[in-house]
């Protein structure tokens, strides 16, 4: 019983420890850097706008917990963790898992679309060749063919 109380007290000690200003500033700098990188990628057309909300949302959440850690502290208590940083890592890993799954779904869809397009290209090419054979005035070689 004594040891249980000691562990609870120790956990409370961890939870009530003040976050250092350096950690807070580090969080803010990382958030601003992430926003800048996302905007730079969009401006260079290397990242499509429709894929940015999830990154902007994650960056915003990171900035909020960096500036105001009380929400993170409450969550840490709720999930039974000891430190704010471990909660942050847990959320980060969960976010990465979700985003990986999201990209796997997008990749599957893109794969299906590529398959459909490649099949359509092949079928149209065959149709063109057949028409060219039927009508000698059409020259299949002069028709620009899509190259994938």
């Amino acid at each position: 019983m004594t040891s249980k109380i000691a562990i609870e007290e120790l956990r409370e000690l961890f939870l009530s420890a003040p976050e250092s200003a350096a950690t807070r500033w580090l969080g803010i700098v990382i958030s601003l850097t992430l926003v800048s990188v996302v905007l730079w990628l969009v401006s260079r057309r290397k990242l499509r706008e429709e894929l940015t909300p999830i990154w902007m949302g994650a960056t915003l959440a990171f900035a909020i917990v960096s500036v105001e850690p009380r929400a993170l502290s409450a969550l840490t208590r709720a999930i039974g963790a000891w430190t704010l940083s471990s909660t942050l890592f847990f959320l980060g890993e969960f976010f990465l898992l979700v985003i990986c799954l999201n990209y796997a779904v997008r990749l599957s869809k893109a794969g299906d679309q590529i398959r459909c397009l490649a099949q359509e290209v092949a079928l149209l090419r065959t149709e063109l060749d057949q028409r060219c054979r039927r009508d000698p005035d059409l020259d299949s070689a002069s028709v620009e063919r899509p190259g994938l």
Partner: protein
Amino acid sequence: MTANPSTNGTVILPAYNEAERLPDVLRGISSCNLGLEVVVIDDGSHDATAATARTHRATVISHPLNLGYGAALQTGYKYALRTQTSFLVQMDADGQHDPTQIPLLVEPLLGDECDLVIGSRFAEDTGYKMGPLRSIGRKIMTGVAKLAGLQVTDPTSGFQAMNRSMLEHYASDDFPADYPDVDVLVRAHWGGFRVLERSVDMSESLRASTLHGGTRSIYYAYRMILSLLGAAFARRSA
């Protein structure tokens, strides 16, 4: 062999780097005088598969890149749907399937007994020998199909014949690009399509590696089970 399959049908042969074996297969089909359109789907081969097929007066559909066996089959289905064909026969391009047995598969289709006919190596004792691992895999897949309510003895056979309604079903986006086997058959069965088997003779595949051989058999088994679980889940939620 009473049916005359020369009534507007198509034979499709998905081929990947089969320039060596394809001429014999095409000559075999041609010598049967079945009057069917022969379509070779060249799945992004690096050899002269397409040119060889053209030399033997087959219609050639060339994928711009390698899409997989299932995708090549589906391209054939899509092609057939754009023509007036009333039935389609699919065969392997490696000489494993005997073209003289095409009428056996087509006959039940012409008599409207079913929508899909599978050429089975095991419906009767044809003396076909399978390796021990593949044999175990086949038994598992046959058992899985039985659990799903479908009685088939050779769910991995690529020698099949189907009518237009089956083609329309297979041309959908759900058709797998890699291994269209027992999962596709079970889905067809659940979709209300009539599946039948006919005993056929088959030779051993001359390919160095097969779709279901080696370590791929493990992925194959996993892939089939996952696909069937997905289909069962979708069926339950529908």
